[in-house]
């Protein structure tokens, strides 16, 4: 009812003010032009990369994604080990970061007293704001030596019977990348999850507590309500992990290798592009790298679109209720 009324009023306002006013028309069209430019920009990005990678797409087609040889000398480009490295590093990072992030989100949204919540939230957001190259710098000089001298010898000693913890403790490799990625996605997942938890109406908690639930039991109910939003936050973290470039490039060892061991070096799509783009001498090489960027572009668009839809549907659910 009210929305109909509003529309009616809007129409009248429009008739009175806009249609007779040239300034309004120009202003609206001008801002529209910029809005359209953002829309076109996304299309243009995809198109530019398609053009740039046409050479490689025509030659390799879909086999680009499943071929496991990445050999610039022979001009054979298969991205399988690179996709493997990207997927494994991101998923493992999520496995580490997710429980912690949800813990942080619960603490910030449900448990922390207001005087502590604000500074803590600020610190978590600060963590998200550190440039990724500084994470990488810290990774090279602090994290990697620590992994080399302490973590990897310990793991291979205690868990060396598993194929995941074998090989020389070199420091640079999948393990370092996973750890640094989990630190980097944690603030993203936790700050969005905190907002999602806070959007659950207070009455849900009150109802649970009134029935005699403990704080934790009421939190579980809130978590159930916020499920889709937290899933969305996790997807956003995944998107970030997949596209993260500098920090990963600096610690992952940069070799296109499929190995179960976390000690071995690996490669991700973003780090291949960062590492080899300026060295790409032949047109085919460059084209293959741009195709890699295109794959990365498409994957992150899908993940982000899905994630934002989840977070939106969550916030809309409570607004209309």
């Amino acid at each position: 009812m009210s929305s109909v009324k509003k529309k009616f009023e809007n129409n009248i306002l429009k008739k009175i003010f806009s249609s007779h006013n040239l300034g309004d028309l120009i202003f609206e069209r001008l801002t529209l032009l910029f809005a359209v430019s953002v829309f076109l920009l996304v299309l243009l990005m995809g198109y530019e990369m398609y053009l740039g990678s046409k050479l490689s797409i025509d030659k390799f087609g879909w086999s680009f994604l499943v071929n496991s040889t990445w050999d610039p000398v022979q001009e054979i480009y298969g991205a399988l080990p690179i996709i493997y490295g990207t997927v494994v590093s991101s998923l493992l990072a999520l496995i580490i970061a997710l429980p912690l992030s949800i813990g942080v989100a619960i603490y910030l949204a449900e448990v922390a007293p207001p005087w502590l919540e604000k500074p803590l939230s600020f610190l978590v957001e600060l963590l998200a704001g550190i440039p990724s190259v500084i994470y990488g710098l810290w990774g090279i000089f602090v994290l990697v030596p620590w992994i080399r001298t302490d973590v990897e010898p310990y793991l291979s000693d205690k868990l060396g019977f598993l194929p995941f913890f074998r090989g020389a403790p070199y420091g640079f490799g999948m393990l370092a990348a996973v750890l640094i990625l989990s630190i980097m996605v944690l603030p993203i997942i936790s700050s969005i999850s905190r907002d999602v938890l806070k959007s659950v109406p207070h009455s849900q908690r009150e109802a649970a507590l009134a029935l005699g639930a403990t704080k934790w039991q009421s939190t579980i109910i809130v978590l159930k309500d916020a499920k889709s939003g937290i899933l969305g936050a996790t997807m956003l973290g995944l998107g970030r992990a997949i596209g993260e470039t500098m920090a990963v490039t600096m610690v992952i060892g940069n070799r296109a290798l499929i190995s179960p061991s976390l000690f071995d070096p690996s490669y991700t799509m973003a780090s291949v592009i960062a590492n080899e783009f300026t060295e790409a001498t032949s047109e085919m090489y460059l084209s293959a790298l741009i195709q890699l960027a295109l794959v990365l572009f498409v994957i992150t668009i899908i993940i982000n679109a899905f994630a934002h839809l989840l977070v939106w549907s969550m916030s809309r659910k409570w607004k209309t209720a």
Partner: protein
Amino acid sequence: MNSKYFYYKRKLTSSIMMLLTFVAALAAIIPLVFIFYYTISKGVTYLNLDFFIAMPKPVGEPGGGMANAIVGTLILIGIGGAIGIPVGVMTGTYLSEFGNNKFVFLVRFLTDVLSGIPSIVVGVVAYTMVVLPMKHFSALAGGIALGILMIPTITRTTEEMIKLVPHSLREAGLALGIPKWKTTLAIILRTAWKGIATGVLLGLSRAAGETAPLLFTALGNRFWSTNIGQPIASLTVYIYDYAKSPFEDWNQQAWTAALVLILLISVLSLVFRIITRSKYKTN
């Protein structure tokens, strides 16, 4: 007896879980403390006046500064801002002022999606769009990449901030017979400008910390250059190159550059805060 057992069990579980969330929050802060500690303690050794006003020394010679990189970073975010601020603010204005149709929904959605696209992909696009036609690396290409990266942040903050302006202000303007465009510019945007400036600052400081999109657009430059048609140095690319280098002296300078980058971002936010505050008082 039985009910009491369950009572205490529930209580205990609750307390343990609450404690665990606190531990998680603490654990999240630990890396932050570590990173700041190392950046400050390692970076401060080379932090002197020379670092800000001298040029990098040739390979092997100790000392020298990064004057060219500091200026380069400022030029790059300047170009980025020249693209990102107008596009972001205008798009945000459109989304909030003329909102409520499917196109607005689509653009809002796309800006959100754009914010999740890896910055290195934006670098590749800037390479194919600017570097390839120009046939050489340039500050302009790097600036354009940074500008694209700023758009989502600035757009969404502008939109949110305009929405916070009370509807009565808009109605008051229109009731006085002021055309809508003038109401938007002189009343709405003026009221919301402090918030919009925060968004702009956030966009600029994120851009200042970007490395990946600059690697093959602005490239880097060991010499003094303010020509936007030529490759240009930036703090972040220096950190990357120096961190990977085998020279300990350069590694040290990478830490100092990291500290200077953090200082630069803090100074940016301080300056913005001072500007916005004084402006607000005179209103």
